[in-house]
């Protein structure tokens, strides 16, 4: 029977009957899977992960200069693309963005319990964050005021100011993909896809743009989206790397791994709280839109919805509706009551009804 306090024995031959007593649930699952597959990374896979960030000296300085240049360029592309409301340009910025490398390096350093690498990677991420936000702020200062209507932000900006649990799901999946791809050089062609799926620089550029425009709530939400992506990538990439065999060699390192993974998990859970509120709001708005759509059909099956702005808040639905119909409008109070019957909340309706009459004339 191995002594449970004997680190050597623990490290070399963990007793199956003791594992559940000492590991967190996540740790138990990863240990079980790891034991099941008994995978050991190859030297090339180790090298691929080690080469993510140079470990000091002139190479590291050179890396940081290159990284900074790419951050400035990608954040500039992203900021102009966001203000121009161009999805294609914003995607281009994602492909130039270099943030994924230090973040996955941080994940690798977390699972292998190498503190100096972890702090170096996190410092690079923090520097990139500051730089990208500053670029967004500068671009907005130079161009934003004249091209942005504060009441109608570009769709690309708006899309990054209301993160939901769906964004968390994307980041978790994309982080796992990054963790799987990074050690395997043959699959690195898929990495840009990960960068596009979980955009890092555009949310930071949005933070800078919205802060410069004085939209502090939007700025906070965009930063929440970035934090969501950051925490979820470190967590899920860490899990993927651990499953690929990247683990600490020493028992103390293994304990540290559990602590670190628990910290990243808690971080993910913390960012999930506001995201769940956002998700609930989104679902409420969706339910209201369906209620309005059904109510309009029940009110007058002949009319067509042209524009619908609906927002549910505090058991109150505010609905602005533009419909087109061929005949005389039916009473608006009936539509408001139809909406209330379906949505079960106070309703404030503003209805604009347009006649749809087509005249076709030929003169010869």
């Amino acid at each position: 029977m191995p002594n449970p306090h004997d680190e050597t024995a623990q490290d070399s031959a963990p007793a199956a009957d003791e594992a559940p007593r000492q590991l967190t649930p996540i740790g138990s699952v990863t240990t079980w899977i790891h034991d099941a597959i008994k995978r050991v990374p190859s030297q090339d896979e180790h090298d691929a992960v080690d080469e993510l960030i140079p470990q000091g000296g002139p190479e590291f300085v050179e890396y940081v200069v290159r990284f900074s240049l790419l951050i400035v360029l990608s954040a500039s592309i992203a900021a102009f693309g966001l203000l121009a409301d161009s999805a294609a340009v914003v995607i281009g910025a994602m492909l130039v963005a270099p943030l994924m490398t230090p973040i996955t390096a941080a994940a690798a350093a977390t699972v292998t319990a190498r503190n100096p690498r972890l702090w170096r990677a996190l410092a690079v991420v923090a520097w990139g964050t500051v730089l990208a936000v500053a670029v967004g702020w500068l671009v907005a200062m130079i161009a934003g005021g004249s091209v942005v209507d504060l009441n109608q932000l570009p769709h690309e900006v708006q899309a990054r100011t209301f993160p939901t649990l769906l964004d968390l799901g994307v980041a978790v999946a994309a982080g796992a993909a990054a963790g799987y791809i990074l050690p395997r050089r043959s699959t690195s062609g898929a990495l840009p896809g990960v960068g596009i799926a979980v955009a890092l620089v555009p949310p930071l550029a949005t933070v800078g743009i919205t802060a410069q425009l004085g939209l502090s709530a939007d700025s906070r939400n965009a930063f929440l989206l970035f934090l969501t992506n950051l925490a979820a990538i470190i967590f899920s990439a860490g899990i993927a790397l651990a499953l690929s065999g990247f683990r600490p060699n020493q028992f103390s390192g293994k304990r540290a791994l559990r602590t670190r993974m628990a910290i990243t998990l808690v971080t993910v859970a913390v960012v999930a709280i506001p995201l769940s509120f956002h998700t609930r709001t989104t679902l409420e708005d969706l339910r209201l839109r369906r209620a309005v759509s059904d109510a309009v059909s029940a009110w007058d099956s002949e009319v067509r919805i042209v524009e619908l702005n609906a927002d549910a808040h505090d058991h109150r639905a505010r609905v602005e509706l533009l419909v087109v119909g061929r005949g005389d409008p039916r009473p608006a109070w009936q539509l408001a009551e139809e909406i209330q019957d379906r949505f079960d909340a106070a309703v404030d309706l503003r209805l604009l009804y347009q006649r749809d009459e087509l005249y076709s004339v030929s003169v010869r």
Partner: protein
Amino acid sequence: MKRWLLLTGCMLAASCSSAASNTSSGRVIEVFGPYRGVEADDFAASLTEFENDTGITVRYTGSADFVKDLRERVEGGLSAPDIAIVPQPGLVDEMLADDRLVAFDDASVAALTDNYPADLTGTAVKDAEIYSAPSRETIKSLVWYRPSVFEANGWTVPTTLDELTALVDRIQETGDADGPMAPWCFAMQSGSATGWTATDWVEDLVLRQAGVDVYDEWASGKRGFDDPAIRSALTTFNDLVIAPGRTAGGLRNILQTDVTLASAPLFGDQPGCAMYKQASFAESWFPDETVVGEDVDFFVLPGVTDSSLPPLVAGGDSLVQFSDDPDVHRLMTYLISPDGAREWAARGGYYSARTSVDLDTYYTPADRAFAELFRDGRDYRFDASDVMPPAIGSDLFWKEITSWISGATTLDQFVATMDAAYADAPTG
């Protein structure tokens, strides 16, 4: 009202089954009225006590097209509400004459006599039975302004119409100390009721320039629109308010802006207008946290001279009933009682002629100030367009004054159309 409230109450108090058992019919009582937005919230809040005490669910629906909608519901075969809140006595008279209304039960009549003065002016009575009860009262003749803006510019509250005209001219010429400013905020857009803000203005001017007797004759149809006194009021209104440069945003803004948003320029950091003539209920349209008496104040539109207190044009809502149902009678009794408006009175923007309530505890300070205007001995008259037959006062007058202001018709065409319609309409 909002069934979620009942559902939430059920979940919290687990008393649904007992509450619901008090409802004899189990159906929802439908109340229809003109209150929307904040006023709808205020009215609905006043119903909560009734719903909690009885388990009866009440749904309130308010429409900007209230007169048209109510007529369709009552006369046009659409579902009639159980109770309506009607600001037009002319419409109440018309529905009473057409036998559309249900007489109050003994409890409601008792509530009426217990809470209101013996002289129930304006209550619809037919064959010794009572068919309507007064509710919220409003004063239309108020001019809202920001004391800080007046003080900063050295302006004083005018005491005669001539002084008001001189102030309006001065503001239009020089603006505010910090930049241009129009004398008035004014807007008319109100769905099918568009025009009522303009008719209110004209009524106030008729009452001031021609006196109460001419006003009464005009309101009752004995004096036409082509009368020199009415023409004079219309011309004064055009010169004082509608002429170019008089209003923030000009004619386009007047015709397109919703009446509830008209006062917005008054409250800007750089105000777009200096004064805003609107009824006491405009308080609910002001920005949140606005304190009447501090941030904004009012004066009564001055008379031709300052030898007597300027008269008031007043409005008032009547409660009428369309269903002879025990639950509906119960709700009507509650609405007539002080409980039926207690929550709204506490929120502000409500006062009534109830004599049974303590003015100091029932109303907010601003509403007490309005109530006192009724009690200082000055003349007041009900809104003439609401007294006229609805087809004239609550439809044609609103439409025709809008056409005239927009420039689509001339003053001659306007008054001729009104008088021709009056000649064809049954007078009340």
